């Protein structure tokens, strides 16, 4: 049976086990807790420095996004064309709206 013509052979590797999914969810929960704690500046006073706060929040957001897309949406196991399709839309949206925000002087405000 040809690998390129069948639907049933779209998965290159095994999917994670249920226990692995639970562990990933645990990591996501910890990351969300850290995110929320940044709101309470009295807990971590260094988050009063804006660039530290922004860097922390963006890194946490990207890691959470990446974990859900790679593991829960199975991009890690599926064919690269799916990752590329999604990344194309994401990159286009990011580029278009950063330019739009620049045009409205959002970052200099």
């Amino acid at each position: 049976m040809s690998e390129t013509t069948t639907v049933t052979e779209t998965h290159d590797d095994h999917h994670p086990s249920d226990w692995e999914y639970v562990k990933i969810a645990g990591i996501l929960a910890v990351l969300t807790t850290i995110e929320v704690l940044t709101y309470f500046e009295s807990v971590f006073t260094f988050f009063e420095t804006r660039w530290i706060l922004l860097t922390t929040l963006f890194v946490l957001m990207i890691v959470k996004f990446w974990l859900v897309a790679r593991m829960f949406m199975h991009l890690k196991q599926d064919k690269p064309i799916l990752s590329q399709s999604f990344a194309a839309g994401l990159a286009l949206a990011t580029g278009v709206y950063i330019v739009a925000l620049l045009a409205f002087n959002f970052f200099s405000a």
Partner: protein
Amino acid sequence: MSTATATADTHHDHDPHATNTGISNNKLAMWLFLSTECLLFGALISTYLLYKTRGNGGVLPTDIFDIPFTSVSSFVLLMSSLTMVLALSAVGRGDMDRGKAWLLVTAMLGGVFIGGQVYEFTSFYREGLGYTSNPAASAFYTLTGFHGVHVSLGILMLMSLWVSAQQGKLTPNNAETVEIVGLYWHFVDIVWIFIFTVIYLIPPA
């Protein structure tokens, strides 16, 4: 003609689901749809970022955010991604009872999130933040409202899967349907990951 090619050609003649990419058209279509959704939510998020300080002298969304409350509903939506993937895993291995249970739990967690959003909107309205109060309010309600509509559609899809499973129409052979609904559900979750950080957690400069 090589054996492999002959086999592939034979398969192509008889398999109505054969595709050039090796991926089912439905799954590829869902990924392409989600790709375009990035542009939709990108537009809504950018609009809010541009208008978030335009309160016309009235109350701004950032003045009345209830971060602890929204954190809980965000956590609920995040955990619904876990239950969704557990549902897919169960259906894939033929454990339909557990699959049905996880589908129902996922829909219920989505319902809790929507309930939280309704409560949030109601409390904001009581504090003077109506949809047309100012540009910031309009942009905020449009963004989070659109996301809420997506979650609601996801709940409807989950419930239709659950009904199909109850009727015995959902089997491991069509687990891909669960996977496609799951992709949509996870996407709604990652959009909220972005909204929660950019809209709620980053304080005004």
